[in-house]
């Protein structure tokens, strides 16, 4: 069938794209989206390996990852809301309180 390694390459591509997106975009929200992309890339890798080794645990891992990622998205977005309320901006570069 399809070589599993292709899926892994795809996973790598997705991850690299996610990283690039995180670094390139200035918007906090979009940066958060990029994080989700990276997580999904990892999920893909998990499933691919689960198939490669015939272990269902990989898929269980993905199950958990999706769940936790959803929870994390909820909290993270709440935080972004708070940041917006405080700083009136969601541009990542505008928030440099830790400067120096």
């Amino acid at each position: 069938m399809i070589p599993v390694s292709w899926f892994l390459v795809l996973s790598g591509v997705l991850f690299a794209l996610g990283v690039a997106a995180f670094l390139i975009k200035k918007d906090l929200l979009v940066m958060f989206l990029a994080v989700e992309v990276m997580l999904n890339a990892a999920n893909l890798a998990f499933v691919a390996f689960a198939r490669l080794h015939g272990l269902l645990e990989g898929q269980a891992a993905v199950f958990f990852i999706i769940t936790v990622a959803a929870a994390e998205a909820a909290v993270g977005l709440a935080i972004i809301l708070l940041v917006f309320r405080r700083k009136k901006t969601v541009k990542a570069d505008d928030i440099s309180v830790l400067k120096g």
Partner: protein
Amino acid sequence: MATLLFFLLSALCVGGILGMILSRNAAYSALCLVPSFAALGALFGLLGGPFIAVVQVIIYAGAVMVLFLFVVMMIPLRPAPSFPKRKAFFALSVVLAACLLALIVLSLSASLKTSAAAAPEGFGGVGDIGRLLFTDLLYPFEITSLVILAALVGALILAKKKKSP
């Protein structure tokens, strides 16, 4: 046939992400990712994980993205140029991301032609996963539900509008 499907889905996935990167509007970015995640779900199915595929589509493409869109709509955003003014930074991040990719591919280069064994019947079926989750992985399962609860409550409290005194 599967190969074709694979490439189609991959294209969709990558395309969505590129769309996310390239669009200037946060809402558009979020929307671009929806088909991307859906395609990913299909890919999961290709890999013999029907249950996971469905979960991915329902939760990620469905719930998480919608959540994002809600928040996007709550925050008035000015469309920003997607390419930052700092050229050096931009160039450097692209280069480094490429390096990352290269490294990943390199590490896989040995096994580039390995094929997967034929999936056993019912591999990745709901029943099997369910058994796994409720026996060996019971603890993580229960704790995850706590995590969700915590996230729920936390998000509620965090996002609540403070009542002015």
